[in-house]
């Protein structure tokens, strides 16, 4: 992606790629690993329970144990550690680090070291607080991405019904994601089409004018699309209430996984106190 492209174009392109990846991680979700074999409801409930357990835990070694379990699950599910490192660990560290680092110096406690030249104290309590924060974020992000990488998006949405999320909400969420992707695709194509007809760099005002006109066209298309989608739903009998099929089946492996998730989360809550 060239640096000549404007901020909005780069953002739209980036969003489009991210959405494509998040919504359709079909390749890794279609692999034959451990997590891919599990029912989506088990994965959503199990991973959520592990995240809650590690957030409730106040002991670093317990959180690190869950993190190690997540890494083991990734390996058993053929999710590459390089992918996790590049997409999760580095990003989480980059966002959480700046928040955690000041805690090392600001948290009151016994100083175990002083930063040369400026003399700021590094406290044990500060180090523990920063490590807990980093470990919690890395573990939660790893578990969440494992779910995304090993479960088709539509299964994740369907699994939300386990938590008594209303059907209409789940359906609207699914449709929203699908049409956001379509509109991003349209915006992406509009920018590409414009680039193919543009010679040389545009001035700031020209770019802003183009962006505003693109936004206007997109808004108009969105409005028309939403009207047409509603008509297409009506045409097939939609009368305001949504009816869907629930076709999940629990296997022996799923029940074993439920037991494992419950045991691990229960142990983490107990040991973390």
């Amino acid at each position, binding site marked *: 992606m060239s640096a000549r492209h404007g901020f909005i174009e780069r953002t739209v392109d980036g969003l489009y790629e991210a959405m494509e990846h998040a*919504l359709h991680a079909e390749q890794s979700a279609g692999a034959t690993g451990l997590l891919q074999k599990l029912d989506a409801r088990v994965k959503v409930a199990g991973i959520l329970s592990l995240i809650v357990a590690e957030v409730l835990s106040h002991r670093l070694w317990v959180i690190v144990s869950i993190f190690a379990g997540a890494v083991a699950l990734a390996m058993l599910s053929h999710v590459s550690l390089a992918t996790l490192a590049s997409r999760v660990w580095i990003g989480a560290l980059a966002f959480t680090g700046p928040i955690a680092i000041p805690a090392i110096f600001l948290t009151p406690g016994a100083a175990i070291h002083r930063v040369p030249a400026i003399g700021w104290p590094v406290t044990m309590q500060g180090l523990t607080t920063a490590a807990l924060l980093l470990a919690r974020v890395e573990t939660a992000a790893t578990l969440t991405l494992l779910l995304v990488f090993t479960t088709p998006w539509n299964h994740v949405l369907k699994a939300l019904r386990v938590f008594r999320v209303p059907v209409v909400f789940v359906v609207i969420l699914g449709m929203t994601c699908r049409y956001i992707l379509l509109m991003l695709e349209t915006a992406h194509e509009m920018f590409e089409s414009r680039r193919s007809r543009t010679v040389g760099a545009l001035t700031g005002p020209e770019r802003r004018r183009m962006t505003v006109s693109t936004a206007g066209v997109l808004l108009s298309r969105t409005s028309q699309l939403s009207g047409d989608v509603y008509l297409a739903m009506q045409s097939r009998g939609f009368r305001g209430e949504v009816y869907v099929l629930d076709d999940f089946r629990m296997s022996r492996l799923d029940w074993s996984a439920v037991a494992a998730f419950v045991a691990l989360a229960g142990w983490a809550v107990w040991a973390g106190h």
Partner: protein
Amino acid sequence: MLFELDRLTYQYEQLTALDNLTLSIPEGSRIALLGANGSGKSTMLRILDGLHFANSGAVRFRGDELTEDRFGDDEFAFSFRKQVGLVFQNPDIQLFNPTVFDEVAFGPLQLRWPKSEVRERVGDILDRLRIAHLRDRVPHRLSGGEKKRVALASVLVLDPAVLLLDEPTASLDPRSQSQLIDLLVEWGGGAKSVIVATHDLGDLEDIADRCYLLDRGRLVAERSPADVLRDRELLERTNLVHAHRHRHAGELHSHPHVHRD
């Protein structure tokens, strides 16, 4: 009569899409609505499907006038939706479910069919349209031809007595076009009514036994497909053909050019 349009006018704000249209469509007929872009074909299909309602005049389906109030009655609405199915021109607006299976099952579920029957009928139609291998795919990721087939399956699964199709062969490759035409010709064994909006004259005689030509919202002719194809002046006047000039052995040669898409 299946459909009767009586001096029907429909306007989009200032634009008159259908202008004082009067025509009748008998039961079991195969109709082609012909016309260039903007002639009112798509609007007419939406009116026949009870999605848009006339500004003036009336449209009747088997004697029942189609009005907004009439569709407020659940019993009538369900009965109508079971009998009449519309395949939109742009499959992207019709494919809003997370998987192909869910997409095809959407209509039967909204019409409150038993779930076991839904599963069985969806499986059957996916097999029949040779798209069973796509059942767990995300519709958005399919090719144009596959999307069209899924959109068609999502309507055919309801086994409607009347099938409305808006430019069914648009943006399909020649092989997919031919397969789709074969399917339409075979569908229902000739007992169903099919109304196709198109400006593709190539397969007209296969898909229709009667043609209505529209031009800027007005009905300009009602003929058999053979008569329409013979009347070059009419086709040129309604922008369905134009003179095509090219060279053969160095000599400029001109003949009517038929719009395929």
